[in-house]
């Protein structure tokens, strides 16, 4: 069953917490991974791989650069999840 928007946000928050140590409550839709959440370009790959596994979605490398904010990632996953 596809994840809801709320489930995706909280799932991403757990992933970002694991990768970058940012408190889960700070992971909000308008936050930028790189500028606000201490996720550098290498750690972003970790976030993407963990999200792919968790939400049964493929995020090709070419699409990763468009995922600037948590909101971008949530929308992408919502519309691509299997």
């Amino acid at each position: 069953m596809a994840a809801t928007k709320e489930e995706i946000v909280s799932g991403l928050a757990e992933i970002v917490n694991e990768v970058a140590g940012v408190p889960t409550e700070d992971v909000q839709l308008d936050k930028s991974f790189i500028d606000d959440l201490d996720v550098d370009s290498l750690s972003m790959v970790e976030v993407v791989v963990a999200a792919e596994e968790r939400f049964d979605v493929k995020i090709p490398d070419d699409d990763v650069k468009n995922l600037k904010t948590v909101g971008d990632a949530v929308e992408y996953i919502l519309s691509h999840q299997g």
Partner: protein
Amino acid sequence: MNATSRTVVVTGLGATTPLGGDASSTWEALLAGRSGADKLPEELFGELPVRIGAPAKVEPTEVLPRVQARKLDRSAQFALIAAREAWADAGFTGPAGSVPEGASEPEAVPTRVAAVVGTGIGGVTTLLGQYDNLKNSGPRKVSPHTVPMLMPNSPAANVGLEVNAKVAAHTTVSACASGAEAIGYALDIIRAGRADVVICGGTEAAIHPLPLAAFANMMALSKRNDEPELASRPFDAGRDGFLLGEGAGILVLESAEHAARRGARVYAEIAGSGVSADSHHIAQPDPTGSGVERALRAAMEDAGMTAEDIDHVNPHATSTPLGDTAEAQALHRVLGERASAIPVSATKSMTGHTLGAAGAIEAVFTVLALHERLAPPTINLDEVDADVDLDIVVDEPRKLADGPLGALSNSFGFGGANVVLAIRTA
């Protein structure tokens, strides 16, 4: 001491070793003659011919913040922990360039600070762990942090980042001489006027079944699987190879002028270094010890020391049958009759052999021995090898004389690398 820009002193010490999570607890355990040896976990090492080692006393992941630790190979974790200790011990309150409260200038200028950290093997546990990920879960599960974690210059780069060193982040790689070579190179950098402060040393984290099997198949390791604490026995007639240890040793070296200007506490002077290559065999030591002899003579000449100036030796002495005797004989040729009367502390009897960290950890010991005027003991010396005629300090630490003291710290590596550091009281 005549403090010129060519005089290089030690102002900070840090270590994490099989004996303790910092320099002072390590030193305390060393003086007490404790062994850092242990049996290795059965589930990982049970099939191996050698199932003993000297693991770090304190797990680095329990010291570093989780998010930082997960992006660092274990060798870089050790280096960073020891570097933080050494930097703070030197009296720096923040990274180079930061201005302490109430001061008008930084304690050190980033463009006058360098980092030199050696390793023998580099991020081998990262490499092997990520290979397991590749095989078991496919290429997508190989961490994007793999390369910056496993590259051999990762410890130097991370230490450099930590203290904001902008002159350079160098890595010396000469197997078990790497840590000593880093200190020798740091000495050169300050003498050449390239930097005022160099944070330097060595690190290693290779207690993993693959390196252990490889060293065992070279016949390099002790097989005393049932008595790990008796396995490392340098100069003893019953020695049968080394005990694999892990950890890091880091020193802050500084021009005497710079140290004096900021009123830093000085432990000792790094008076000289000597380097040579055996050019004999890729892994076996030259049984004549001629390369070792040349490195010893070079270090003493560089320091302006004669045999009369040497009051303490921390030998390489790993507990291998060939190496220990060749080293003892080389010491005799260089130091003459005095070789039989200088207190020698074979500290690998307690730490095991920490490979690329060993030269730096032992430099920390040698500096402390001079500063505290106390030579640590050697353990497990039940019957001295008939070919070894040295005054080895056994069981209890021995008081060193008052007045100026000089010491040598030896480190030799596979590939025929020999590095000797000459150290004296400041």
